[in-house]
């Protein structure tokens, strides 16, 4: 079998704070193939961003710590690389786009300078080449009059344009994996759709893999091939988009889908919300972290965390003791 682009094995990340140890990521394992689009969904604080940042060792250490696990990128463990080698991967092969376009560009430099910076770090281009390439990239992400806008400062760009500039920066070295950490959360809906379309198009053209982190199930449904659903630092369900949406097997995913408003529902139907709050990551319960909010609780749920089990014929994994019962209920 061909080597996957990225394989994460049993990744565990903790933060050591004054209030105790926060278990942010608790043994995450999965594979990402070349050219695949993976959606990662979950509530705030479920470890989706932290696990993505840990891939390139970008979490702040201290207080953070990567306790165990491997992140194999083309078979190389990124967690064990020397810093200089890691720098080649950062931006060169894996690029990242962040949530808040308002603060992800340095206000002290022009947009062009910042795009050119990535190019000079990795491609060793000279000033003029880097400038040409930057202008090309800016127009590629749909900024009109790109060559002139290179000399603008970030405050002269709107939010959507800044996010486009960020994407241009991320794409500058033609990475094989783009990690997008809630890139559309801070934008309004029309801009959101444009950014999603842009990434979709670029993904197709460049054949790069994309990891799209969001809490918006609608966006991933449109974009992703596979979805990881995360809860309290665990992957609790993973599978192809259709499986996740049509053959949902985890009560948390059911809850997430239920809390989406739908147009095709009869008017007056109440939205289902998941009761309660996510568990405190400092003191995780012994069993499944979802017990306090779940409607299917049995004794085994209180006893131990269920392992990820394959429940379908094509890589549909669920971590729930009662998935069979849920499957019957759905059928």
């Amino acid at each position, binding site marked *: 079998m061909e080597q996957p682009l990225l394989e994460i094995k049993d990744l565990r990340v903790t933060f050591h704070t004054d209030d105790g140890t926060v278990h942010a990521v608790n043994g995450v394992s999965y594979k990402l193939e070349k050219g695949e689009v993976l959606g990662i969904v979950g509530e705030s604080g479920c470890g989706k961003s932290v696990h993505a940042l840990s891939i390139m060792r970008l979490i*702040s250490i201290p207080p953070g710590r990567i306790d165990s696990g491997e992140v194999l990128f083309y078979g190389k463990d990124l967690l064990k690389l*020397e810093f200089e080698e890691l720098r080649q991967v950062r931006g*060169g092969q894996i690029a990242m786009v*962040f949530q808040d376009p308002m603060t*992800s560009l*340095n206000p002290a430099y022009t947009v062009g300078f910042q795009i050119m910076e990535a190019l000079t770090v990795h491609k060793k281009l000279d000033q003029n080449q880097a400038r040409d390439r930057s202008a090309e990239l800016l127009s590629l992400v749909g900024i009109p009059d790109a060559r002139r806008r290179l000399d603008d400062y970030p405050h002269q760009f709107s939010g959507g344009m800044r996010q486009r500039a960020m994407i241009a*920066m991320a794409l500058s070295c033609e990475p094989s994996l783009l990690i997008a950490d809630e890139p559309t959360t801070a934008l309004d809906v029309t801009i959101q759709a444009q950014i999603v379309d842009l990434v979709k198009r670029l993904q197709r053209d460049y054949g790069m893999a994309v990891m799209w982190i969001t809490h918006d199930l609608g966006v991933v449904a449109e974009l992703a091939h596979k979805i990881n659903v995360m809860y309290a630092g665990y992957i609790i369900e993973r599978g192809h988009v259709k499986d996740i949406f049509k053959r949902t097997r985890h009560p948390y995913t059911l809850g997430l889908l239920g809390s989406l408003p739908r147009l095709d529902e009869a008017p007056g139907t109440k939205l289902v919300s998941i009761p309660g709050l996510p568990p405190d990551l400092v003191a995780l319960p012994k069993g499944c972290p979802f017990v306090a909010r779940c409607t299917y609780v049995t004794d085994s749920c209180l006893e131990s965390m269920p392992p990820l089990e394959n429940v379908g014929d094509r890589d549909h994994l669920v971590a729930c003791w009662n998935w069979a019962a849920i499957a019957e209920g759905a059928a």
Partner: protein
Amino acid sequence: MPTLTPASIMIERKMTKTTQSDIATIDYAVREHRSLWVDAWRRLVSSRTAQAGLFIVSFLILTTVLAHFFWEYNPKTDLDYTLKLKPPTLIPNEEVPSVHIFGTDKLGRDIFRRVVHGGWNTLMVGIIAVTISLVIGGLLGLLAGFFESIEMTRLEKILLLVFLGGLMGFLPAWIAEQPVQIVLFALLGGAAAMFENFLAGRSARVVLFAAVGLLIGGGLALFVSPYTAIVTGLLGGLIGAALSLQLGGSLFSNITMRAMDIVLAFPSYLLAIAIVAFLGTGLEKGMVAIGIVSIPVFARLVRSSVLSVVQKEYILAAQSVGEGHGRIIFRHIFPNVLSPITVQTTLGIGSAILAAAALGFLGLGAVPPEPEWGAMLGDSYKYLSSGAWWAVVFPGVAIMLIVLGFNLLGDGLRDALDPKMKV
């Protein structure tokens, strides 16, 4: 294209925002890069207090610099007992045959001349002392703040431990008068960082490094005397044990900041006097003393500003495109902490001048015939009771004016650079 004032361009730009047609030309006019600094400068010169500060400071600097280069003065030969303590004289008369607009002092020297020339020394103290504290304190603050939340690379760890080893090794080296110990302890620090995984987290590691430290400190000092060997051996053991710990960025920051707290715990003038007493009197030593005393102010200010900038996503973004730490610190963080530094530097020059004057007043600053405002005060206050007010008032007013000028300018800068004030 018609000439437009910036304000009218801004208005026009807003109105045409939706039409797109004229925007290119107007945009072009606006794009006279109004950077943060240009904006800040405009705000600065439009504020009354800043104008006053700017005026006072540039006036005093100008007169001082002109006097220093174009008006010769030799303090060693300036002496005339016949003119002892004469009041300000504008028209020469029999008793006072020359003009002394500020009067003369106890040695018959012209006070105006000495005030004007004394400004050079005073300003030098202010600028050099602040430069010392700015460079050292600023660097410490930058590094402490940065590595508090960003993992150190192996090379940075090695450099840090070599530095710390050498720094701590200074003490036994000084006691035993063997400078080579500094080098050896620095090497021990480097070894601790290079073999950071060797016996990591075990007590055997501490014992091993303590033993090596003891050997370096004690063994070498045996050539001096057995008693010295005991003292330096013990010190060396402690240093070895300290170096064996896994020193990371947060520990570095903690150590630096606690050291700053210790310096701040002393009343600053008292500490400056103690340093001068240790180094010996003289203008240069006064500068160093005042510089050292105000290092913590800069270190803490810069660290706290860095801590807030490091959290910004553009730092994460810079890391994620693979930029190195040096580039991130100096290219991305430094420009964004520049405004508090600028303000503090300006205010710092004022207080350094004041401190220098205090040292001079106590006779710990400039060596006597050299003119310096504080020293002039100290020389003359005894004659105040006999009515010679001019010998005290003029240097005093000069000190007050320059400090006032720098404080007004600093306040103006703070308002001009504060992003919250932006319109």
